[in-house]
């Protein structure tokens, strides 16, 4: 055994494994661009942030706007709806979140959410379902007036995108 390192077979084994390893790394490096081309391209990524004016939206009205190709619900909630959302005990929620955490302080009448259902991405219908919020026609998920999941297969509440109030009537999404 002691003399094995002098055995040319051992040296050959090393070269064999080293060559194989280099080839494997090379193959992986070659394949990666072929996979990476599937990722969102520059033109898709360019649509990062938008501004949207809220004036003109009436109380109780919803509008749908587009951000990064995704529809976003902007809803001017009525006082009743806000009260209804606040009245729900957290223990009743599948994905517990307070109404406050779903809106911005001082602007709690505005609910801004990605429109896609968190189950499989359909667009829920507004002011529908048992909880006066949204009801997804595809698989029966129902959301309350704060966009929280209350019933059906969706695992989480409707997603709040990153956004901020630039002024009282202007929001910036993204």
């Amino acid at each position, binding site marked *: 055994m002691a003399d094995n390192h002098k055995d040319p077979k051992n040296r050959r084994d090393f070269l064999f494994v080293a060559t194989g390893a280099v080839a494997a790394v090379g193959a992986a490096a070659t394949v990666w661009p072929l*996979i990476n081309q*599937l*990722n*969102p*391209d520059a033109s*898709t990524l360019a649509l990062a942030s938008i501004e949207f004016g809220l004036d003109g939206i009436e109380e109780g009205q919803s509008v*749908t706007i*587009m951000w*990064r*190709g*995704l*529809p976003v619900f902007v809803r001017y909630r009525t006082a009743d709806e806000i009260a209804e959302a606040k009245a729900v005990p957290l223990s009743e929620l*599948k994905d517990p979140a307070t109404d406050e955490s779903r809106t911005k302080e001082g602007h709690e009448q505005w609910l801004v959410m990605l*429109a*896609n259902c*968190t*189950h*499989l*991405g*359909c*667009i*829920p*219908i507004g002011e529908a379902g048992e909880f006066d919020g949204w009801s*997804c*026609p*595809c*698989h*029966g*998920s129902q959301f309350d007036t704060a966009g929280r999941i209350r*019933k*059906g*297969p*969706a*695992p*989480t509440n409707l997603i709040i995108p990153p956004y901020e109030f630039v002024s009282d009537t202007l929001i910036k999404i993204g």
Partner: protein
Amino acid sequence: MSEHSTYTPGTGIEKWLDERLPIIRFSKEHLMDFPTPKNLNYWWTFGAILVMCLAVQIVTGIILAMHYTPNVALAFDSVEHIRRNVNGGRIIQATHAVGASMFFAAVYIHIFRGMYFGSYKAPREILWILGVLIFLLMMATAFMGYVLPWGQMSGWAAQVITNIFSFIPIIGTPLLELLRGGFTVDNPTLNRFFSLHYLLPFVIAAVVALHIWALHVPGNNNPTGVDVKDSRDTLPFHPYYTMKDAFGMVLFMIPFAWFIFFAPDILGHPDNYVQYNSQVTPAHIVPEWYFLPFYAILRAIDFNLLFINSGLLGVIFFGGSILILFLLPWLDTSKVRSGNFRPMFKWFYWLFVINFIGLTYLGAQPAEGIYVILSKICTAYYFLHFIVILPVLGRIETPKPLPTSISESVLGKAHA
């Protein structure tokens, strides 16, 4: 199985070819002389019908690709262009669309035939596994093809099905963006679906070749499930089964033609004749009929289990409902292949069929009220059949006596 070959090259050219590419010998062995059990019934004809279906889809698909445009602004109109302007386009497009339905109808019959007669049991496990693989590839291909016309159902089918991947922990969202090529289903998605929809049928054809190879090593199963003992049990494939299959194909083409010529759109959904709108989901999303049972299973899971949320759990059940078929050869513990000789299995087999049809019905209903509860029951039974009923049945059931040979079962004991 070269031992069945009786081929001796006749002419000089055949001799020359036989030493270089023995394709005539191969054809003679596998398409003509191949010894086939003489008692195959018409359920076995669906294998040949499926080969025909694949050929029809490939030929019509290649032609449609000559006229179709894979761009979100033009795709919908290009399909209408095919249907209205291209010479014979209406028939070719209808054949392709109806053909997908006929293909799935035939594959379901083929699979259920295999399940009844125990065609998945030793020594045919690999044959069965390749079959399930073909089924999966067919589902992927049909789904991506369905997206191409870029109608309301198409686009939303793409949304919903690709979203399934978002439930995979940690890598879900990046993976979803990789698959879609964007934050949502859009032009990059349509482009790659077109490319893959064109590619996958050729992959299917390759796996079909392996499937037939795996069939020709042990040879066909048969309605008795008894192994072939000697040459009295078999007939050469040609002309006995080539002609029988040809007759079956003609019968199969009658409803096929009826759909194409009289009701080309009846199997589709009217919403797919509205161009895709990413901001409005149709009031009621339903997949094509052949996906309904699995869709019902996906929808039935609306509860969390331990640390797994309903989304991931739905995907696990949805995927599991197909992947469990891979394990079928080992889940069924009975030594007897054919359901004909298994008195208890027969009942549970038909219950499974009814349950499967029930899931198909439920998949088409809105997800509310009684339908949700029934979907859960049927989903539970679907899995129970594989995980509990089949393993237990094999142990407690007393099968009826098997015939000693295929010949005996055909001719009766007195003549054997």
